[in-house]
């Protein structure tokens, strides 16, 4: 009985020592880790199908919140059916934190499937109580195809290509000749002939500002008759269009663009704004102001 309990105690002691030793090992490993909060770790390939032997790039992008001068080692992915031909590293300081990019140059070995396991960074995360974490990227899968065969297109293909190139050359030459002829004709001395006086063109066709002012006049007339907020809205829209306001522009933005000396238009715009947004009890007073300033603008 005593011997059995002694045996149990030895086993328990050995287990406890083992636990403490493994904990100590973890702590030691964690102490050697960099302090980083990794907010992005992604792996992207420029293509997912490639011919065997053809090189292409895989980019590993890491963003951390900390400012680091020398970025810690990224554990590169294990490659299956791929040769890693080279690695290029670049660390740049972002507005917040640091960006690190590693570009792998890889090539497929044999036709079939190929893959890259996730790349990872081991670090202590300050946002999560400085515990050691493994930040991993996504894995990647590729389809490796046989080398592209050269298609023998035959003599007809060569003939056709040569004809096509000849045609393009002929058209280009013709274009140059025509351009030269036109320029020569334009440079000829002009004959001095007295032209008849220009016909007057209707104002509405050439002067949109006048048309816009007419819209303001019409809207003002309607507001004068109805004295309603709805017509004040129409009048304000006409006035904004007359002042050249963009659709997304507010009054303050418009006034910043307008000439400071254009006091009549400024006053009319402010009064129209008030008539549209003022509370119900003061809307008639505001419409009076809008009418007065509008009349001054039209006059």
């Amino acid at each position, binding site marked *: 009985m005593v011997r059995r309990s002694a045996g149990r105690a030895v086993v328990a002691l050995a287990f406890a020592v083992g636990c403490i030793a493994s904990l100590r090992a973890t702590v030691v490993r964690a102490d050697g880790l960099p302090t980083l909060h990794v*907010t*992005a770790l992604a792996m992207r390939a420029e293509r997912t199908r490639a011919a065997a032997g053809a090189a292409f790039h895989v980019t590993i*992008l890491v*963003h951390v*919140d*900390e*400012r680091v001068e020398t970025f810690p080692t990224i554990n590169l992915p294990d490659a299956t059916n791929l040769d890693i031909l080279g690695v290029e590293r670049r660390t740049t300081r*972002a*507005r*917040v*934190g640091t*960006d690190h990019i590693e570009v792998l140059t890889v090539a497929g070995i044999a036709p079939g499937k190929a893959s890259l396991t996730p790349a990872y960074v081991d670090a202590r995360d*300050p*946002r999560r109580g400085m515990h050691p974490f493994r930040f991993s990227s996504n894995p990647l899968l590729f389809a490796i195809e046989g080398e592209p065969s050269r298609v023998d297109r035959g003599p007809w293909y060569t003939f056709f290509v040569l004809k096509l190139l000849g045609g393009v050359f002929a058209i280009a030459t013709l274009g140059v000749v025509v351009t030269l002829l036109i320029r020569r004709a334009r440079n000829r001395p002009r004959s001095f002939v007295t032209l008849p006086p220009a016909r007057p063109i209707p104002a509405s066709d050439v002067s949109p500002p006048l048309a816009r002012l007419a819209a303001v006049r019409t809207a003002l007339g309607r507001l004068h008759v109805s004295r309603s907020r709805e017509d004040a*809205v129409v009048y304000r829209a006409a006035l904004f269009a007359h002042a050249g306001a963009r*659709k*997304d*522009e*507010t*009054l*303050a*933005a418009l006034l910043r663009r307008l000439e400071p000396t254009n006091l009549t238009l400024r006053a009319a715009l402010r009064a129209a*704004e*008030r008539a*549209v*947004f*003022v*509370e*119900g009890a*003061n809307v008639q007073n505001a419409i009076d102001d809008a009418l007065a300033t509008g009349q001054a603008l039209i006059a």
Partner: protein
Amino acid sequence: MSARPQALRAALQRTIVGQGAVLDQMLVGLIANGHILLEGPPGVAKTLAARSLAVAVGGTFRRVQFTPDLLPSDIVGTRVYDQRSGEFTTVLGPIFANIVLADEINRAPAKVQSALLEGMQERQATIGAQSHAFPDPFVVIGTMNPLDDDGTYSLPLAQRDRFALNVYVDYPTREEELAIVDRFGAADVDAVIDAVSLDDVRLWREEARAVHLEPRLREYIVDVVRATRNLPPDLLRYIDRGASPRAALTLAQTARAKALLDGRTYVVPDDVRELAFAVLRHRVAFSYRVVSEGIEPLELIASIVRSVDPP
């Protein structure tokens, strides 16, 4: 005769050089009964602005420097055993003030942040079995330094949402910096004490609630906030989550306060456009691509706001 908000603005401008938009937005926060998150590099008068505001309204002011070892009881208060009387007495924390400056709010761990933010929402704190109401007005001004983010605990979206406005305090212009050196180089400038009273502030809040907001503008506010959720395809990859309906509510309240501050009894589209950045900035969750591609979040917000035509 009560003082007007413009008097408070003028008093603050006597102490703080430039930063007109920042002061206006702080006053808007005060009038709209909202909390303010000040963000900016160190040394741009964030703390001075908060202290000046408290002194100018004649209220109590407390500053809490947030550190990683701060405890919730350091902010809210605690019950202390009195050996002489043999009873527990309640010691109220610094949160019981009219204006509380939570300096470097992102340096404290989550437990302390949530204790403060719970108080901000409820406007009362429970110590032991008893609830204690905060004084009125009660405004928390949190500051964050975006440049020095080592050893910080960023505020989660749900907690940032408790702040009505996120005001960015930028470096002053050359002329303003010259004026700062002139004004503060020779001697310390005292803040204007009691420019207005706390009763004035309470009255302004009543007046702000009565400021007229046209139905067209209400629709505009809702459309602007919804635009952060219904994004065009080119912006979709930069934003993980849009602003909540609380943002629309806050935008309406702050627009009313802005109208009052400008001496109007009605809101105009410019009020909404001007405050949309401060209301939406901290409520939109940007994706990591914004950082990795070096995109300015304010530009994103600006393009979203501009995508909705004003009435």
